[in-house]
């Protein structure tokens, strides 16, 4: 059984000796040139400012930091609409509504606080009853002065 199954080229009679040649003493001079090139490269590396030597790492760190801050501030400024303060017009409407209740300033503040507490209570109630919290519903109920417990009991 043939150990070597390699194809035997028909052109095998053409000598395998290399037809290429090099200038005299090429390989000896190559060694010297290579040594010189390496030494110069090492010298240049040693004289590079620290920033230039670490530039790739600095750039990577800056890119990561930029992405981090973009994501962080992106989330911070685009989310949580519920924390958005009321506009001037909205504030006037609230005051006008509460003023209809014939309340003075102190009573007004108490009413606002009470409304806020009521909103929290309503949310808790809705959560307990596994009802999806709907901000618009709560605001409506609060505005119309409707007692949510009445609705829940009737369900």
């Amino acid at each position: 059984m043939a150990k070597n199954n390699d194809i035997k080229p028909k052109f095998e009679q053409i000598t395998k000796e290399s037809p290429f040649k090099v200038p005299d003493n090429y390989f000896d001079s190559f060694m010297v040139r290579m040594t010189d090139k390496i030494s110069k490269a090492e010298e240049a590396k040693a004289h590079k400012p620290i920033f230039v030597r670490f530039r790739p790492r600095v750039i990577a760190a800056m890119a990561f930091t930029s992405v981090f801050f973009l994501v962080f501030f992106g989330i911070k400024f685009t989310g949580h609409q519920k924390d958005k303060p009321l506009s001037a017009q909205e504030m006037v409407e609230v005051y006008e509504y509460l003023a209809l209740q014939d309340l003075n300033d102190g009573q007004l503040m108490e009413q606002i606080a009470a409304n806020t507490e009521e909103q929290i209570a309503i949310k808790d109630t809705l959560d307990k009853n596994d009802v999806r919290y709907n901000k618009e519903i709560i605001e409506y109920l609060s505005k119309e002065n409707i007692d949510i417990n009445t609705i829940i009991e009737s369900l």
Partner: protein
Amino acid sequence: MTTDLTHYPDKELLSIFRDTERRHYAFNLIVRKYSERLYWHIRKLVISHEDSDDVLQNTFMKVWNGLDDFREASQLYTWLYRIATNEALTFLNQKKQKYFLPLIDVERQLMNTLETDEYFSGDELQKKLQKAILTLPEKQRVVFNLKYFEEMKYEEMSEILKTSVGALKASYHHAVKKIEKYLEEN
């Protein structure tokens, strides 16, 4: 008495290189041991002596910069061959892109170099064979050169080119057939 540096085992060369005070000495030994062999491998691919010299220098610069990270997962010489092969193929690709040349024009350019190169000393048959080899795709040319001229084992070639032995055998077989056809037609 001169020490025959070509018989320094690779493990020993690497061990000397890891000693920071002797790394230049170790590197010089590696260059002396492998530069000729790598040069001829590169030369068969890029043809011109000047280009081969450039590619060989680039190869050893990469070796110098990469030896610290060389984990000896493969043998040193297969690693060196891999770098040299990649540098030669990169050189040919850059030539293509630099002058917006299609592949066939790169081949024609290399064939012209064969005709005019002062450092080509082969006879007409050898020139014809080299031209036939130039018609092969670049990677197939590498396979053919390593197998036919350097009589490298497929297993070693597989480590260098990161290709299966079966694929290399098929590639060499096809390369031989293409060259035979070229020589018959020309």
